[in-house]
């Protein structure tokens, strides 16, 4: 299973390296979202600074959706779905590999967005341990739940509209949790943030288990 996961993750990341879709399209999109928030919320009134953690994570969520859509659209091409089933790859390994690849892309995105936020919204970044752990756990939540619901929506013409409908309500607790954790970290009260990390860890575990068990059955019957 681990061998297959690393193989699939390597393949997905190599695909990204060659096609550069995340770099050329998703990262600019995320930065664009930050800029749009500034237009909507009028920087002079102090709303941007107060809302920075939330706006950051909303930008991450929307960009994450794009990354997940991309992860499944490469498999939708020309018979790859059948080839995956015939390949001898362990479906749980395929799931974990895809989660890993999306996570790596999201982590790079989040680092860039953090720079974006520090520059555009003049945020002072602090409380690093909590900040970093939150980022890792939240990324895992988004990648795991997104890959599971992604395969539920895979192979269907309505995938692009179905995936957000399924995924965003499910990720609401992750948005709440990561925002509160960031607020605690930036506000200097990290002890308020760690319980949220705990909740999100439970979420991540739930979805990794669900994905490992459910990916195989879901891969059948395109």
């Amino acid at each position, binding site marked *: 299973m681990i061998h297959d996961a690393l193989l699939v993750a390597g393949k997905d990341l190599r695909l990204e390296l060659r096609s550069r879709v995340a770099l050329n399209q998703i990262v600019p999109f995320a930065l664009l979202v930050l800029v749009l928030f500034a237009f909507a919320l009028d920087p002079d009134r102090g709303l941007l600074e107060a809302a920075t953690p939330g706006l950051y994570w909303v930008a991450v969520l929307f960009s994450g959706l794009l990354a997940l859509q991309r992860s499944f659209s490469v498999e939708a091409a020309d018979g790859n779905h059948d080839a995956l089933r015939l390949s001898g790859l362990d479906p749980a390994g395929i799931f974990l590999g895809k989660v890993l690849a999306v996570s790596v892309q999201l982590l790079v995105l989040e680092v860039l967005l953090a720079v974006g936020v520090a520059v555009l919204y003049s945020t002072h970044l602090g409380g690093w341990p909590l900040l970093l752990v939150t980022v890792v756990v939240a990324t895992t939540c988004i990648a795991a739940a997104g890959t*599971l*619901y992604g395969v*539920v929506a895979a192979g*269907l013409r*309505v995938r692009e509209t*179905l995936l957000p*409908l*399924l995924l*965003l*309500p*499910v990720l*609401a*607790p992750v948005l*709440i*949790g990561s925002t*509160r954790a960031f607020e605690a970290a930036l506000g200097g009260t990290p002890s308020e943030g760690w*319980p*949220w990390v705990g*909740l999100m860890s*439970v*979420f991540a575990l*739930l979805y990794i288990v*669900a994905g490992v068990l*459910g990916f195989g*059955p*879901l891969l*059948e*019957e395109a």
Partner: protein
Amino acid sequence: MTTQIARGSKGVEPAADAGPTSTGSRGTLILGILTLVALGTLALFALVLSPDDSNQGDAVRIMYIHVPSATLAYTGCGLATLGSIMYLWRKSQWWDLVAYASAEIAAVFTAVTLVTGMIWGRPTWGVYWVWDARLTSTAMLLLLLLGYLAVHRLPAEYSVRAKRASIVGLLLVPNVIIVRQSVNWWRTLHQKPTLFSNGLGSKIEGLMLFSLFLGFVAIGLLFAWLLIHRFRLAWLEEQIAEEGIDASIAARRAEAGDIGRWEGTP
């Protein structure tokens, strides 16, 4: 050179019609009458016989619908998850359709909860919506149920739809639990008033308690009646879809008719 013609054996058996053939039956007729009676009694007690609240006045009467609706919405969601688990375990279409019907009725009741909540909220706090823990969680429940329903209604084969919807349905209850927990933590930091804490002047006892109890009974019966009909409707829809396999096989074989055309001499 001999040519062997190997005839295929008979194809699939027709789908066994083990279910009802119409959505009404004697059982549902009795249930329906009971429901009407219960609803009528509820109306009597809720609107006339039970007292005003000392603080909220007449507005409190919405509670007799709002609270049972909320409870049944969550119950329906639980049934959807149970049905999904049973479908994945036993591959039983019956359970999957129970899940689907429950989710749909639960979505209706969730909407009713939200609307009655808004109607209750307006005179009580002056606004239609507050982001209190309960209302927010209930709004999330509606969205989660709509996602499940969308998957079950995909334009695809039944087995594909049912399996995918069951995975989503299976996760409904865990999602609801996590959402409620996160929303509760989030909102209790801010001590906003809820429908209950701000304003019920009197404790719920006596006639009010009885009316609330009646509410549970009446709305519960309504839920059951709606569920049975919705389930049967879904069952019949799937039965219609499955029929005609034998006819298809016969028509398919007829295509082979002119087989001599395709057997050439090597």
